[in-house]
């Protein structure tokens, strides 16, 4: 990737998410869109594989996960996901669509912000000790099939890791180098609510190329939109034809249909004040009776960014290392201050998570921390539903109460 492209990607990726159209319909696709066939998509993967680690959706362990791919045959052709609160099942589709599913168990977060990362290693030597940076194998990622909600999630994590005085260099380089092939959703999952959060189902910016799968009895190809110079350059090397009005209308229809299929809704009107003034609502105890405090919701969330740091030393006292790991506000250690954890109860921990995600995130970063991907609903082992919990608070708000118990 050229330095120019790197700068371009940076400014593009960190920019504010584009606004969605006010009337709720899909925005018209850009001019100069192209159409590629499935062979063209394989050519895209081949071209990216020359200097990227190419990752895309594939079937593993009864789910559609993101993993390394090289061939179109590794994509989940003819598979879809049936998702509901605490429930995920892979099912056969009636057709052989390649992207006919919603989102999988884990987001692209695990590649950009890996779950375990060594920060440094120290070795004792004659002069005391020396500190070494981890040996980094710089692998540029290419992500195939990034959904609109996930692009918004990356923009949110950019604010966390790259804005301000203390940018995370590892995240920054992985993020800048990533080539993003978005896919406009053709199928909303049972727990999707991107329309409520204004984050989908159409990818509007933050990608290099965006695909819309056009698939009916008579055709199976992809409308391609360009989101960056690098995307344009790559597209120019693929077998393609210029998109005509019928292609654009077909793509718009796909997105409009997905928009109408949302499995969930979340009323965001005044939600910051609503949650911040209901710290003592009885619903927190109600949800705590169901919540396992297992941390799954935070792990699968594409924006949750919290980590813990572990220091290790070896038996001989010759080397030490500092390791960063994903952490969760559902663990006791997360809020451990001198003398103990300040969030002992499940009520306090669930309240912290949802209030941060939907309310205080706005104070902190200027946007909601939720992109409506629905993963926290699907992958909660007991099916706790963030939209349902927020609605329950809204249905019977209590007066006052900005400070709740531990």
């Amino acid at each position, binding site marked *: 990737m050229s330095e120019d492209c790197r700068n371009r990607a940076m400014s593009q990726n960190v920019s504010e998410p584009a606004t969605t159209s006010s009337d709720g319909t899909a925005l018209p696709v850009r001019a100069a869109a192209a159409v590629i066939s499935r062979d063209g998509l394989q050519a895209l993967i081949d071209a990216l594989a020359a200097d990227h680690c190419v990752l895309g959706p594939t079937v593993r*362990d*009864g789910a559609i996960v993101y993993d390394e791919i090289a061939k179109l045959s590794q994509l989940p052709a003819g598979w879809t996901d049936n998702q509901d609160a605490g429930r995920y099942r892979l099912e056969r589709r009636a057709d052989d669509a390649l992207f006919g599913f919603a989102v999988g168990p884990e987001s692209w977060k695990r590649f950009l912000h890996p*779950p375990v990362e060594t920060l440094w290693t120290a070795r004792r030597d004659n002069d005391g000790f020396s500190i070494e940076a981890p040996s980094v194998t710089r692998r540029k990622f290419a992500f195939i099939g990034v959904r609109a909600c996930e692009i918004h999630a990356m923009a949110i994590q950019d604010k966390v890791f790259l804005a301000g005085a203390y940018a995370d260099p590892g995240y920054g380089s992985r993020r800048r180098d990533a080539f993003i092939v978005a896919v406009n959703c053709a199928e909303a999952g049972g727990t999707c609510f991107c329309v409520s959060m204004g984050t989908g189902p159409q990818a509007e910016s933050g990608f290099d190329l965006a695909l819309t799968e056009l698939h009916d009895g008579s055709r199976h190809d992809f409308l391609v939109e360009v989101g960056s110079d690098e995307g344009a350059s790559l597209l120019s090397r693929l077998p393609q034809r210029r998109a005509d009005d019928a292609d654009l209308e077909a793509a718009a229809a796909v997105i409009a249909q997905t928009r109408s299929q949302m499995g969930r809704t979340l009323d965001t009107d005044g939600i910051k004040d609503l949650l911040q003034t209901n710290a003592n609502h009885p619903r927190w105890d109600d949800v705590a*009776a169901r919540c396992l405090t297992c941390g799954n919701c935070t792990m699968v969330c594409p924006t949750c960014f919290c980590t813990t740091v572990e220091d290790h030393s070896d038996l*001989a*006292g010759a080397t030490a290392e500092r390791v960063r790991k994903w952490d969760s506000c559902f663990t006791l250690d997360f809020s451990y201050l001198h003398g103990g954890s300040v969030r002992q109860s499940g009520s306090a921990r669930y309240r912290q998570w949802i209030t941060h995600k939907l309310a205080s995130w706005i104070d902190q970063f200027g946007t909601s921390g939720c992109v409506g991907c629905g993963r926290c609903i699907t992958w909660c082992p*007991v099916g706790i539903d963030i939209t349902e919990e927020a609605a329950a608070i809204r249905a019977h708000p209590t007066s006052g109460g900005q400070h709740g118990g531990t």
Partner: protein
Amino acid sequence: MDRDRRPRLAVWKFASCDGCQLSLLDCEDELLTLAGAVEIANFPEASSAVLEGPYDLSLVEGSITTAHDAERILKVRQQSRHLVTIGACATSGGIQALRNFADVNDFVAAVYASPHYISTLATSTPISAHVTVDYELHGCPINKEQLIELISAFLAGRKPAIAAHSVCIECKQRGTVCVMVQGQPCLGPVTHAGCGAICPAYRRGCYGCYGPMETPNMAALGREWRTLGASPRDIRRALQTFNAAAEPFRKESEAHAD
């Protein structure tokens, strides 16, 4: 403590299968370094040369099942500057704590030809029910990497980097797809991390070998198991294994009568 003197290590066995102390011998790559870092003063499974106490670090395996052992653990504590229990037997009573749910005399009569030779307590109890324990390392068996971490932390005078959260977080760290959300009952959400989430990686529900996590919501898990089709007997049996007498597991198992 003399700074030039190596800390003295002792390994003690109570009612157990020896698997946890064997984990120490399993640390093949680290054994020589370990022997250089500590003086292995009392470890009968490794060496018949047993040196007298006191000891700086005692690793205690096994549970208390006899009056003799209930006395012996007091003496171990008296000789130990730090006492760390290792494994499910020592931390919760082990599989042998199944006796706590029935009459031990019935078991003795069923197993032994001459029951009158057997002198045993009615219950199997963890070491912490008898003496002060400085740290508990969970698991059946323990994870040898955690054991090395524990000893390394002891030598450096730091807190061991050993998490008490759920197995779920380990599943997510390794990228395992949740088996419970795919319909299979799993004890992972209420179980203490440490194994690295082995069973779900092989598409099996967690067996709870590491016992209860820091804040287990047992009732919520029990309800979800019922929703997934588990019978009360299934739930009882799943919870009454290696950590049957750990209080959250015991209580929830007894809440599911046929």
